[in-house]
């Protein structure tokens, strides 16, 4: 027989063993390569076709491709690459969830929060001034983080507005985000809040709705009527005002005035019901942002739980159900966070494994409540830390790939649900109080990891964070770090610059399998919740923290300017020169505002709280009710009411 016929027979037999999908991948390979060698790439995102150039040009005139495909000839290599790597935007999304980065929107997102809402509003306008996209990230003070109201009691008073902004009422939230159009497609707001997340989210949503109401009033020239109503209302009751005691005379530069004209009022009071309903719908469907609301990592690492874990999870499920019912599609209902797990001392593998496991726990819980995977998976987002360890170079790749595989093959989810999107903050723990100038170097390298890994959003820490709250100057430098990488660094113009590295590919495989092994360990302990009951996660995080501290202490883990390469003076701990503390006047103003809010709402607050408790007792959607409750009740009032029906968090050790 002719040798080629024998070969052909073997070939045909093998062809039978190749799955149709994989045969198709091989067949389309040349077309794909061709697509990426053109000038532009057209692709579809949520029914919109976007076309973007595929190259940039360097000063030397070199055409720099944004996405480079491998030169493999062997079909096995080609197939493996497509199945495990693929171009950005294609399953399993190892290289990224979008085909190309958006033009004109850097992933920059800077954390801010200090003093009262007015001061933080000013900082927000400062950091976003001149930026094409408004990406605000809100740090709340610890009083707010624990769901309480500011008060004169000294152990509370001292913490009001420290290391975060004090927000106790809907009016505080309106001031905080005023002057930004919360429903604009280029505005996105993230809120770092967990225990009381549903309440703060309801504050935010109401603030956005009332901004839409303001726009409606302007469009329909109804201000005279509204102002008349307001005047009558505030004749008897204290009138709220935007007042920054530090800069009393002016609004911050860039402030449009939007969001301040309905202080003390709800759009529901002054708009015709159908107009209000329309504004509400528009706002809910358009607002972009993220609320952290990850109660599992709180119990494992961060300790800002306030409600019993079961009740806290029920609240999260209620938020998600509300999002589905009201078609809130541009807002992440949770930011499943590994950052705090890493900050508490976990190594990158543990961070990734615990966080993904927590994510799948939310998935299982929401499924068990009868929600459809494709209705809620797009509302989930992730948040990781990037430190110095080698595994951080692949944390996004591994996360995306595990998520996509599980979503597609375990949960039969659609493409949108398969795409894991995540925010990176560079590691605060990796910054040191000695030789603090060196910290920017660490942050730069971590930011480079993050940008090469196509994170969807990035916060770079300020070099002085190890010793104090960052100043405007240090925050500006931190922002410059990512701007320099994104705009100046030539290699970052290629959006898959690291793809094809032998080291990176192997690291991806190793970390993926290490995460699977950790899943097995959690599974042996009854899953995430069973492991939590035994304090497995906490203990593991503590052990890894000790391992790091020991190596730092012995010098086995070299830290430049900390345990080696010390300066002539021994690289002493740096004390902060300028310390930002909220001032007494601001704190007093917050408390006075709160008391005025109580007075304005004295008639409605008890009834609102009763209704909230009733909804909880009847197993109704607590978040849907909170959307009303927050119009009349302060954060602390709501927390107390919910403790009565849902139970307080029980500490453990």
């Amino acid at each position, binding site marked *: 027989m002719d040798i080629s016929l024998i070969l052909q027979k073997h070939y045909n037999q093998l062809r039978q063993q190749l799955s149709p999908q994989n045969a198709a991948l091989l067949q389309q390979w040349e077309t794909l390569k061709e697509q990426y060698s053109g000038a532009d790439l057209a692709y579809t995102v949520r029914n919109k076709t976007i076309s973007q150039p595929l190259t940039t040009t360097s000063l030397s005139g070199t055409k720099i491709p944004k996405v480079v495909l491998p030169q493999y000839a062997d079909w096995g290599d080609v197939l493996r690459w497509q199945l495990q790597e693929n171009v950005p935007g294609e399953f399993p999304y190892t290289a990224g969830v979008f085909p190309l980065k958006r033009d004109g929107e850097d992933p920059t997102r800077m954390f801010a929060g200090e003093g009262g809402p007015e001061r933080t509003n000013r900082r927000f306008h400062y950091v976003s001034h001149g930026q094409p996209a408004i990406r605000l990230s809100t740090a709340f003070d610890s009083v707010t983080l624990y769901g309480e109201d500011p008060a004169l009691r000294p152990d509370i008073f001292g913490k009001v507005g420290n290391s975060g902004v004090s927000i106790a009422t809907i009016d505080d939230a309106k001031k905080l985000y005023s002057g930004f159009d919360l429903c604009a497609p280029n505005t996105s707001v993230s809120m770092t809040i967990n225990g009381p997340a549903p309440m703060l989210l309801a504050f935010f949503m109401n603030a956005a709705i009332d901004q839409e109401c303001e726009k409606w009033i302007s469009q329909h020239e109804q201000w005279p009527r509204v102002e008349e109503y307001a005047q009558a209302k505030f004749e008897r009751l204290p009138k709220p005002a935007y007042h920054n005691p530090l800069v009393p005379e002016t609004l911050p530069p860039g402030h449009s005035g939007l969001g301040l004209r309905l202080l003390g009022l709800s759009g529901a009071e002054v708009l015709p019901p159908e107009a209000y309903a329309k504004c509400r719908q528009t706002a809910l469907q358009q607002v972009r942002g993220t609320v952290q609301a990850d109660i599992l990592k709180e119990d494992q690492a961060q300790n800002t739980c306030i409600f019993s874990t079961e009740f806290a999870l029920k609240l999260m499920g209620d938020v998600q159900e509300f999002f589905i019912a009201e078609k809130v599609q541009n807002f992440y209902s949770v930011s499943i966070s590994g950052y705090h797990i890493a900050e*508490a001392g976990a190594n990158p593998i543990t961070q990734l494994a615990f966080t993904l496991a927590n994510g799948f726990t939310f998935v299982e819980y929401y499924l068990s409540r009868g929600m459809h995977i494709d209705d809620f998976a797009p509302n989930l987002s992730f948040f990781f830390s990037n430190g110095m360890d080698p595994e951080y170079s692949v944390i996004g790749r591994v996360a995306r790939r595990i998520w996509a595989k599980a979503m597609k093959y375990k949960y039969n989810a659609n493409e949108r649900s398969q795409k894991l999107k995540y925010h990176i903050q560079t590691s605060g723990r990796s910054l040191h109080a000695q030789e603090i100038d060196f910290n920017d170097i660490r942050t730069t390298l971590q930011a480079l990891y993050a940008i090469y890994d196509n994170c969807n959003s990035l916060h770079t820490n300020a070099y002085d964070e190890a010793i104090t709250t960052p100043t405007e100057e240090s925050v500006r430098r931190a922002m410059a770090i990512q701007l320099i990488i994104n705009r100046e660094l030539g290699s970052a113009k290629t959006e898959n610059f690291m793809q094809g590295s032998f080291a990176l590919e192997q690291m991806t495989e190793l970390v993926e399998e290490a995460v699977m092994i950790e899943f097995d360990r959690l599974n042996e302990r009854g899953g995430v919740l069973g492991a939590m009951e035994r304090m497995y996660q906490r203990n593991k995080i503590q052990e890894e923290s000790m391992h790091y501290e020991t190596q730092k202490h012995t010098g086995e883990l070299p830290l430049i300017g900390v345990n080696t390469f010390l300066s002539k003076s021994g690289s002493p701990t740096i004390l902060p020169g300028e310390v930002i503390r909220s001032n007494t006047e601001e704190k007093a103003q917050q408390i006075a505002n709160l008391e005025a809010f109580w007075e304005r709402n004295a008639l409605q607050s008890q009834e609102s709280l009763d209704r909230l408790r009733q909804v909880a007792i009847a197993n109704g959607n607590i978040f849907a009710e909170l959307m009303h409750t927050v119009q009349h009740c302060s954060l602390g009032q709501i927390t107390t009411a919910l403790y009565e029906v849902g139970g307080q968090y029980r500490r453990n050790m």
Partner: protein
Amino acid sequence: MKPNAPHNIRLVTAASLFDGHDAAINIMRRILQSHGAEIIHLGHNRSAKDIVETAIEEDAHGIAITSYQGGHVEFFKYIKDLLDESGCGHIKIFGGGGGTILPEEAAELHQYGICRIYSPDDGRTMGLEGMITHLLQQCRPEPDGPFWKAEASWDNLAPLGEHKDIRRIARAITHAELGNPSMPQSLPARTAPVLGITGTGGAGKSSVTDEIVRRFLNSFLDKTVAVVSVDPSKKKTGGALLGDRIRMNSISHPRAYMRSLATRLDNTALSGHVQEALDICKAAGFDLVILESAGVGQSDASILDHCDLSLYIMTPEFGAASQLEKINMLDYADVVAINKYDKAGSADAVADVCKQYKRSRNLWTAANHELPVVGTMASKFNDEGINHLFDLLLEKLASKCQAHFGRYAFGSTAKVSQAIIPPKRTRYLSEIADTVRQYNSMVTQQAEVASKMYQLDGAIKICQTPQQHD
């Protein structure tokens, strides 16, 4: 009054209000324990009043707090103020907050009477051990020092808005523990019933106790309760972790008193001075006294010597049913709670315990639901099982001890209709791991096939190419 030495140092440890950073204080308290201190650990997010009330009720020598969230100056000063107002300025205050507490702030606090704020530089120069030794030295009460002198200065007003003078109750127990002549009792001995709670380690005794206390305080608005809780001392170091308060949310209450005792030299589930402590609480006029033992083994039933009514708490994970035959408390307990009732096999566990309960009491014909054996989930808010347990306990207190507290009703609570993860889905992580691994082996296998096809394709092409000869 001359105290008997030696004296175990008792310290309250906590992280400050609205502060979740508990890693440092956890390390500190462990070292303190290893140096022989008795640690009443409150955990994170504790208010100044919580901490001060605990320190007074526990008759502690000192308080050690970490604060990393700012507001430390106000926080520490407020603690000092509350202690001074309560006539307990003898309780020493220690703190740390890494770099968040500036040197000038630390100096201001020292000036104000805070014993010591440890700085990162102290950490470097003294070392952890050095800091702990320093702290303990400061706490050791001198004979005739402020710790002992304090009681002479106390008026008869209860501090911190408490219903009773928690200082004198606390001090009386301290004297009892040291074998000093007891203080004169201001009140005649009363006969409050003592509820004894015992059970295996990790069964959730303190959570159940907390849930009972919460229901008691909410149900009877004029009644008071005292809890005496015992934890073991470590033989090796003499130190003890008195950790029950960390799980207690309801104990910081004007009508509640709690005292944690270490077993000290005694090798049992109870301290040798537990009866004196109970008598002091009775004499102080509490309406109900609860004694919670340390975790016990199968044979320990010592709590019966001290209580009028006993509750035995266990979990469904006791192994084979025959293990139950060895548990002494099952023969004597008035009520048995099987906690963590959400665990697999709970219904069987209750049935097995009922069988043993009947066997040991010759109640062959009793129906299971008539027996005082309850499945509970203390981790669940307002759990029906705990409600039932509370009903049972009150019934028994009335019938066995003639203690009648009045009518009560439980508040309604939010319904969480179902388990967070349904039992049949608990293997989800393993399923995901399988999915990922299956995918990866599919890739390896298919890439191999494709590779061979590529080789054959190449070979076929070579065969088909006409050979060229020179």
